[in-house]
C-alpha cells in the first residue's frame, strides 16, 4: 500500500495519530537535554544526540502528516535538547550539582513566579474584556509600596495587603476611565500609569521614610511591620518538602487564584460575558450586557491582582521597598499573558518558566564563580531569557498568539 494509505490508516487509530507522535517527539527532545542535568547527569554525549535525533524524526513525521505546530515543536525541542545536553556535559558534575539543586531551584522558581502570576492573571482579565493593560508594572509597584507602608503603619500584614489592593485598584481605575470613558489610546494611558506610579511611590517613599540623605533605609531594618507568613508543612529535606514544605502564603494564594480564574473565565456565565466583551463588544451590548461595567470591573480587578503581586514582593519576599523595585516584572507578566495565550494556566506555566530562568540567573553564578565563562558567572543573560522567549512567541514561531478580537479597541455605546 502507498504511504498515504499507511498514514491514513495510522491516523485512524488515535494511539498512533500524528499529533501524539509529535508530542512524544517534544517530550523526547526535552529529555535529551534534561537527562544531562542532575540528578541523572548522563555524561555520554551519545544520549542527547540519539534522543535529539529521534525527536527530530518524530517531528518530521508530524509535519508530514500536517500536524505542523506539534511537528515543528518536536524538531525544535530535539535540536535544542541536543544542544543543551551537549553544552551541559561540558560542565563538570560538581558545578552542575551545585547549580541545579532542584529542590531549592524549584522553590526559588515559585517565589520568583508568584508576583508574575498575580500580575499576569490581572492582565488576562483586563485584556479578555478588551482593554490592553501595559500599566501592570505601575500597578504592581503601587501595590509594593502601599503594601509595605500599610503593613508598617498598621502593624498588620493583612491590612497591608488590602491597602495595596486598594492602591492598585485606584491606579487601574484611572486607566479604566481613560481607556473606556475617554476612549484614549490604551497604550498611552498604560504608559502614563507607569510613570505616575513610579513617581508617586518614589515621592511618597522618600517623604515618609527618607530623611534628607541618611542611609537608614539601606540597613533593611526600617520595616517594623509583620510580613506575610509562610505556610509550613514540613521542614524535612526530601524533594517535595524542599519545594513545597515551607513557602509563603501568597504563593499558595496565587496557585489557587490560577485555578479559580480559569474556572471563572471559562465555566461561569460572568466569564462568558467578559470574553464576549473582549471579542465583540457590540454583540454583547445588543444582548443587554453592560460592556462599560464589565470592562471597568475587569480593569480594576487587574490592578488589584497586580498590586497583590507587588505586595507579595515587598511585604512577603524582600521585606523592604526601594524605588522602582518591580524593575520590569510587570512587563514580564505581560509577556506571560501573551506566552500563555490569555489563559490562566498558560500564563501560570509561562510565569513558572520565566521564574525558573530568574532562579537560574541567581543559582548559576555562585556555582560557576570559579570558571572562566563570563556568561555563566554573570547570570544576566539568563535574566534576558524570558524576554527572548516572548519575542519568539510573539513572532509566531511556535504558533500564533491571538489576542481577544476587540482587545485594545475602544467601544462606543450607541
Amino acid at each position, binding site marked *: 500500500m502507498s504511504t498515504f494509505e499507511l498514514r491514513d490508516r495510522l491516523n485512524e487509530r488515535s494511539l498512533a495519530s500524528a499529533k501524539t507522535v509529535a508530542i512524544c517527539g517534544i517530550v523526547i527532545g526535552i529529555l535529551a537535554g534534561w537527562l544531562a542535568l542532575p540528578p541523572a547527569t548522563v555524561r555520554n554525549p551519545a544520549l542527547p544526540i540519539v534522543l535529539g535525533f529521534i525527536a527530530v524524526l518524530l517531528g518530521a513525521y508530524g509535519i508530514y502528516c500536517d500536524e505542523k505546530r506539534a511537528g515543528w515543536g518536536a524538531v525544535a525541542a530535539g535540536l535544542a535538547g541536543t544542544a543543551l545536553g551537549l553544552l551541559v556535559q561540558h560542565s563538570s558534575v560538581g558545578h552542575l550539582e551545585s547549580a541545579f539543586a532542584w529542590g531549592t531551584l524549584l522553590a526559588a522558581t515559585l517565589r520568583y513566579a508568584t508576583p508574575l502570576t498575580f500580575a499576569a492573571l490581572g492582565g488576562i482579565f483586563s485584556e479578555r474584556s478588551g482593554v490592553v493593560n501595559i500599566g501592570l508594572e505601575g500597578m504592581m509597584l503601587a501595590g509594593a509600596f502601599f503594601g509595605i507602608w500599610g503593613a508598617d503603619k498598621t502593624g498588620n500584614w493583612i491590612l497591608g495587603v488590602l491597602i495595596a489592593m486598594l492602591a492598585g485598584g485606584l491606579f487601574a481605575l484611572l486607566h479604566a476611565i481613560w481607556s473606556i470613558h475617554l476612549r484614549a489610546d490604551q497604550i498611552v494611558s498604560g504608559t502614563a500609569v507607569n510613570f505616575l506610579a513610579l513617581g508617586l511611590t518614589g515621592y511618597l517613599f522618600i517623604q515618609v521614610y527618607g530623611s534628607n540623605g541618611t542611609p537608614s533605609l539601606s540597613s533593611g531594618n526600617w520595616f517594623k511591620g509583620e510580613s506575610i507568613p509562610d505556610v509550613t508543612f514540613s521542614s524535612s529535606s526530601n524533594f517535595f518538602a524542599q519545594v513545597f514544605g515551607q513557602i509563603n502564603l501568597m504563593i499558595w494564594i496565587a496557585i489557587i487564584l490560577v485555578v479559580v480564574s480559569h474556572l471563572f473565565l471559562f*465555566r*461561569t*456565565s*460572568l*466569564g*462568558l*460575558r467578559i*470574553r*464576549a466583551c473582549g*471579542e*465583540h463588544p*457590540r*454583540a*454583547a*451590548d*445588543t*444582548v*443587554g*450586557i453592560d460592556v462599560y461595567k464589565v470592562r471597568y470591573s475587569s480593569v480594576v480587578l487587574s490592578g488589584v491582582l497586580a498590586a497583590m503581586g507587588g505586595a507579595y514582593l515587598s511585604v512577603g519576599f524582600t521585606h523592604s521597598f526601594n524605588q522602582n523595585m518591580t524593575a520590569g516584572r510587570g512587563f514580564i507578566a505581560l509577556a506571560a499573558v501573551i506566552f500563555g495565550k490569555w489563559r490562566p494556566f498558560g500564563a501560570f506555566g509561562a510565569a513558572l518558566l520565566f521564574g525558573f530562568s530568574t532562579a537560574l540567573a541567581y543559582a548559576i553564578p555562585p556555582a560557576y564563580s570559579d570558571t572562566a565563562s563570563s556568561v555563566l558567572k554573570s547570570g544576566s543573560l539568563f535574566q534576558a531569557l524570558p524576554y527572548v522567549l516572548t519575542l519568539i512567541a510573539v513572532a509566531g514561531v511556535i504558533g500564533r498568539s491571538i489576542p481577544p*478580537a476587540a482587545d485594545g479597541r475602544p467601544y462606543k455605546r*450607541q
Partner: protein
Amino acid sequence: MAAASPVVLELHGITKQFPGVLANDHIDLDLKRGEVHALLGENGAGKSTLMNILYGLYKPDEGEIVLNGKPVTFSSAKDAIGKGIGMVHQHFMLIPVMTVAENIVLGTEPTEAGIVLDYGGARKRVEELAKTFGFQIDPDARVENITVGQQQRVEILKALYRRADILILDEPTAVLTPQEATELFAILKTLKAEGMSIIFISHKLNEVLDIADRISVLRRGKMIGTIPREGATETELARMMVGRDVVLRIEKPPHKVGEALLEIDDLHVLDDREIEKVRGVSLEVKAGEIVGIAGVDGNGQTELIEAITGLRHPTAGTILVGRSKVIHHANPRTMLDAGIGHIPEDRQRRGLVLDFSIAENIALHDYRYAPDSKFGWLYPKRLIERARRLIEEFDVRGGGPTTRAGGLSGGNQQKVIVAREVARNPKVLVAAQPTRGLDVGAIEYVHRRLVAERDEGRAILLVSLELEEILSLSDRILVMFEGQIVGEFPPTASEEELGLAMIGAGKERAA
C-alpha cells in the same frame, strides 16, 4: 385573514434627528399579528434608524410606540428584548470564536447556583428550539466555521430563544446566496404560522413582493404609504420609493470598440478563508467599451477586482493588460504601472487617505515619479499645482489642494478619486460600486464621467450591486454567480433575465 388579525405594534409620529439629517420624520406604522410587513426604501431612507428605535438602541425625539395596546418606551436593547422584540441585524452580532450555543444564550445564560454556566442545558435548549422551528444547526460549532446562511439562522434563534414575538430582519438577504434566501423565506413562513409578526426591511423590490403581506415605503425619512401585496406592482412601488416614474438611464452615444485591453483567462482566486471565490473566470474588456458585472454581493466580485488590481494573488490563470502579460505575483504597484486604474468600492478605506490633503491623495499613486519627485526628493508645490488643475477640471467642491480629504462630502471625495485615476491615463479603469452612498447629483456625475472615459478609448470594467446602474451604463453585461461568469447579456436585457441569471437559474438552463 389579515384584516381580522389584531395589531401588535403601532408607531405614531416617530421622529429622529441626527446632526444634519432628519432620519425619521413623523412616521406612522402598524404591524398585525402573524403578518410579514415589509419596509421598503432606498439606501439612506431611514429604515435602519426606525428599527434601531424600535429595538431600543436609539430613543425617538418625538412620537410613541404602542405594544399590544400599551404605550412603551425602551431604555435599552435589553428592555426591548424583554418586551418581546427580536432583531436580526444586517451585520451579525455574533462572536466568531464562540460556539453557536454560547452565542445564543449570551446575556441570559442558564446557570447552576447562579454562577456556573450550564453549557449542557444551553445546548439542549438550542437543539429543542431549532427543532421546533425546523432549523438544522450544530450547537457546538464555532460561529466562524459555519456558513453565512447558518449564521443568520443563529441570529434568528437568538431572538426566538428570548421569546420574541416580533421579529425585525434588517436587509437579511444582502449577504445570502439565492439558495439561502429561499431557505430563509421558508423559515419566515414557518414563523408566521407560529404566530410571529415580522418586519422585513429591504430595498429589493422583487423580494418584497415575494414574501410580504403588506408593504410600507419610506423615502427620505418620511412614510409614503402602506399597501397590501395583492395588486402591488413593481412600478408603483418604485415610484413610491424614488418619487419619479422612470429609472435613470444615461444617454449614451454609440461607441467604437478597439482592441482588448484587459484579458482575463481562467482566473482562480481564494479569499482570506482559503475558499475559492473566483472559479475560472475568463473575460475581456475592449477599448471603448464598458463591461458591467452584475451579481449578488459575495459571489466573487470583490476577489476578482482584488486580483485585477494586485491586492490579492490568483492561484491560477492569467491577466493581460494591454496585451502584455502581467507577472503572476503582481502587487498593486505592478498593476498600476501596467495601466490599471481602480475606483475602489470603499473610498474611505481604500481610496483615500482622509488625513492627507487633496493634493497628496491625488499623488497617491504617482508620487514616486517625476514631476512629483526625483530620486526620492518630493516637490510639494508640483503636487499642489496638479491638484489645482484637476480640482477645476473635475469640479471638486468643498476645498482646495491643501484641504484635508476627510472634510469633503462623499460625492466630492469620489470625484477626487475619479480625477486621480483618470488623470493617470490608464488603459483599463476598474470601477467597483462607484456610486455607493452618493446623492443623485454625484451619481449622475460619476456615470457621465465613466461614459466620457469610455469614449476616450479606455476599457472600463464596472462592478456594481445596483442592477439599474449596470443596465444604464454597460455596453455588455456579464453576470457572476458563485465565482463564475454564468451569462452575457446586452444592455437591452430585462431586469428579470438578469435577476434569474444572478440567482443561478440561467446557469442550469445553459447546462
